[in-house]
């Protein structure tokens, strides 16, 4: 999904949750969900969280206890006026229940992870300028070759307004978007899997990408900015405009991303990590690091940074 469709999808998802989706927007949402099947997972995730939050803060409808049924065929329907607010203390009445559940989940996850690791090998892939130590500027496109970071206006900088690179002497600063939407500034790097695994019998089945992010607290609330890592999988090099990946390209085979709200702590860096199961025939990956803000108060992002990008491939 190109960035425009991603933004649109997020906007539609927000309005769906608000209950304010128009008929036209509903049609558009259906089209996006159909064209980008991976977005269906995102929708299910997001609306599930929405539902959990409603139950958490509004109160779960009471399931009738056995004695209350007495031959009735329906549970009593709570009126909107009778909702009660569930507090965290209600869940702490039975701490053993949540402890057992947590332990069970942890055991299942541990067993699943252990079995997966026994059959898989994790390879760290070398990104070009992963730590942004090279002062080579971020280019607008990759017309010079499929290597290095490219994208919106972003500068390689040293310490900046109290933000110190997490490693080495430099980091990347998101400056401004080169085109619409102006709220997002992103840098991308293309990975050619055939070159990365030339001569190897290993086959990558999944990819993890991560980066560290930081923001300076200022007049624009840092908590309204978010950072993101997105992975796109393609099977062919687009015949035209590879330099504009993934903004204006054929739909990817799959994509996955994670976002995190910026905190106000300039002393610590926040990690954002995304993972993606690779569809068969994946040939190229695009790793995208982004900073997003709600409204652009001025032309430049006031102070959002990334450092220490990494990509690992799971191979079998």
């Amino acid at each position: 999904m190109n960035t425009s469709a991603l933004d649109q999808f997020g906007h539609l998802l927000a309005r769906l949750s608000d209950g304010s989706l128009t008929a036209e927007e509903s049609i558009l949402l259906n089209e996006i969900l159909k064209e980008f099947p991976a977005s269906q997972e995102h929708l299910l995730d997001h609306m599930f969280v929405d539902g959990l939050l409603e139950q958490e803060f509004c109160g779960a409808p009471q399931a009738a206890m056995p004695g209350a049924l007495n031959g009735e065929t329906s549970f009593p329907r709570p009126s909107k006026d009778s909702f009660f607010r569930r507090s965290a203390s209600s869940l702490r009445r039975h701490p053993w229940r949540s402890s057992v559940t947590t332990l069970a989940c942890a055991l299942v996850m541990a067993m699943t992870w252990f079995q997966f690791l026994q059959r898989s090998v994790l390879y760290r892939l070398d990104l070009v300028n992963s730590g942004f130590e090279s002062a080579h500027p971020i280019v607008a496109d990759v017309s010079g070759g499929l290597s290095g970071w490219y994208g919106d206006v972003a500068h390689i900088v040293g310490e900046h307004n109290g933000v110190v690179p997490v490693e080495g002497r430099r980091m990347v600063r998101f400056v401004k978007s080169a085109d619409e939407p102006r709220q997002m500034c992103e840098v991308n790097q293309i990975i050619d899997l055939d070159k990365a695994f030339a001569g190897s019998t290993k086959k990558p089945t999944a990819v993890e990408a991560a980066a560290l992010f930081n923001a300076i607290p200022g007049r624009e609330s840092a908590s309204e900015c978010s950072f993101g890592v997105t992975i796109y999988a393609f099977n062919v090099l687009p015949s035209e405009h590879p330099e504009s990946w993934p903004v204006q390209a054929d739909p990817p085979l799959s994509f996955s991303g994670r976002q995190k709200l910026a905190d106000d702590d300039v002393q610590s860096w926040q990690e954002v990590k995304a993972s993606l199961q690779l569809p068969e025939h994946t040939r190229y990956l695009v790793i995208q690091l982004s900073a997003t803000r709600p409204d652009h108060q001025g032309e430049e992002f006031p102070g959002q940074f990334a450092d220490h990008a990494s990509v690992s491939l799971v191979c079998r």
Partner: protein
Amino acid sequence: MLGERVDRTSDDFVRLLTASQPALYACILSLLPDRAAAQDILQETNVTLWHKAEDFEPGSNFMAWAARIARYHVLNYRRKAKRDRLVFNDELIAELSSRQEDRVEDVSRYSARLQYCLEKLPVEHRELLSKRYAPGGSVQDLAAARGQTVGAVSQLLYRIREALLNCLSQPALGDAT
């Protein structure tokens, strides 16, 4: 034990039923983003679960069984509902239902971690969520109270939910390399 059936009045079944309510509702809402309709369907699902209690195999995945029944009720509702009230078309709902069936483990994990992840949110974000999801809460009212546009509040709530989702989806153990 083989052949053992659940007594609908047993503590275990009641505990499973009540504990599953938030996740069940959230599953229903994911397929039918109409809160009033989702509440009705939850009620209908509970009745069915209650009457079919003896079909549930002790030790099997209650949430998977309950969510399957909930999906049947969602599809049944869609058959009777007017088309213009439905967000997803028929082809899409089939795909979404299929995907949701494969996500039972995620559902259980998200529910178990919600409190932990809520506590990791900044206080002002938790307060915003509590106001949004309070009875009668709306994005419009929130925006008016905060002196912001509806769009800005909507986007902020969206990002807060995304942040929660990021926390909820973290594995229980640290990454292994």
